[in-house]
């Protein structure tokens, strides 16, 4: 661990538990409210019928995954630039939330695909690039367990966090660059106006949920690292009592 990193984490971290807990309740209210409103106001689609409602979870989850990996990219660049372990912990927290959201996007896409395309899975460019995205960031999490050296772990993770992000624009534009059965990016500009409010509400709700996930994971990781630093310091000064 570098000197700047250890000094940043050796003091007692500020406990933001109260604010994070409020954010959690806010996220719950936003998701339940957003889904409720979307269900109430959206009429069945002409082609997909009620299956259209899956869009209110599938699309916000996909957007959140992309936001998550953008956060990872920025935090990874900041880590390599400033060597502050807090940026590494933020990147790792965002990867976890991003992997959950990407996994959810894939599963919900499969559940939607079966009744509409007739198959659970097909090697379509959008689906394949999204699956690759999931594997890259799941690999990022696996990589973190390969070493106990915090500095090396952070450096390796930052490299994957930066290189892995190259796949994000490929996923986003895959529906325009290649011939695909997946529809173009769902956004207020491309969906029926009747569905825009529900989509916007749930995009905001999922974003609040994502911020809660990252904040909660970041707080606990920071506390854990600070505790580990204290235990290491105690061991070096002969304070170990096993």
């Amino acid at each position, binding site marked *: 661990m570098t000197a700047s990193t250890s000094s940043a984490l050796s003091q007692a971290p500020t406990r933001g538990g109260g604010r994070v807990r409020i954010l959690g309740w806010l996220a719950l209210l936003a998701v339940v409210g957003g889904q409720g409103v979307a269900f109430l106001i959206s009429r069945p689609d002409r082609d997909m019928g009620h299956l259209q409602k*899956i869009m209110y979870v599938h699309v916000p989850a996909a957007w959140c995954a992309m936001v998550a990996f953008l956060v990872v990219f920025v935090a990874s660049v900041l880590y390599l630039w400033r060597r502050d372990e807090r940026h590494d912990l933020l990147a790792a927290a965002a990867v976890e939330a991003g992997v959950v959201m990407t*996994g959810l996007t894939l599963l919900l896409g499969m559940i939607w695909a079966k009744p509409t395309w007739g198959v659970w899975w097909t090697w379509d460019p959008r689906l394949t690039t999204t699956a690759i995205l999931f594997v890259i960031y799941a690999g990022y999490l696996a990589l973190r367990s390969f070493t106990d050296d915090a500095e090396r772990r952070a450096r390796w993770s930052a490299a994957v966090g930066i290189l892995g992000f190259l796949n994000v624009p490929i996923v986003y534009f895959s529906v325009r660059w290649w011939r695909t059965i997946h529809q173009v990016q769902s956004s207020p500009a491309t969906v029926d106006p009747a569905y825009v409010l529900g989509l916007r509400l749930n995009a905001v709700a999922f974003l609040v949920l994502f911020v809660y996930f990252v904040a909660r994971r970041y707080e606990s990781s920071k506390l854990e690292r*600070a505790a580990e630093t204290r235990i290491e310091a*105690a061991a070096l000064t002969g304070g170990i009592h096993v």
Partner: protein
Amino acid sequence: MSDWLYIGLAYGVTLIALLGYTLYLRACARRAEALWAEADRREVGR
């Protein structure tokens, strides 16, 4: 399967994923608190 079964499956999967991850986050927070308490205990014992 009818549309509603697929919708139920989608929302069920979403609930399990989000609730499961929330519980995992709670476990991580508890582990961190326990480690912090352990550091306190070792410093007192020095």
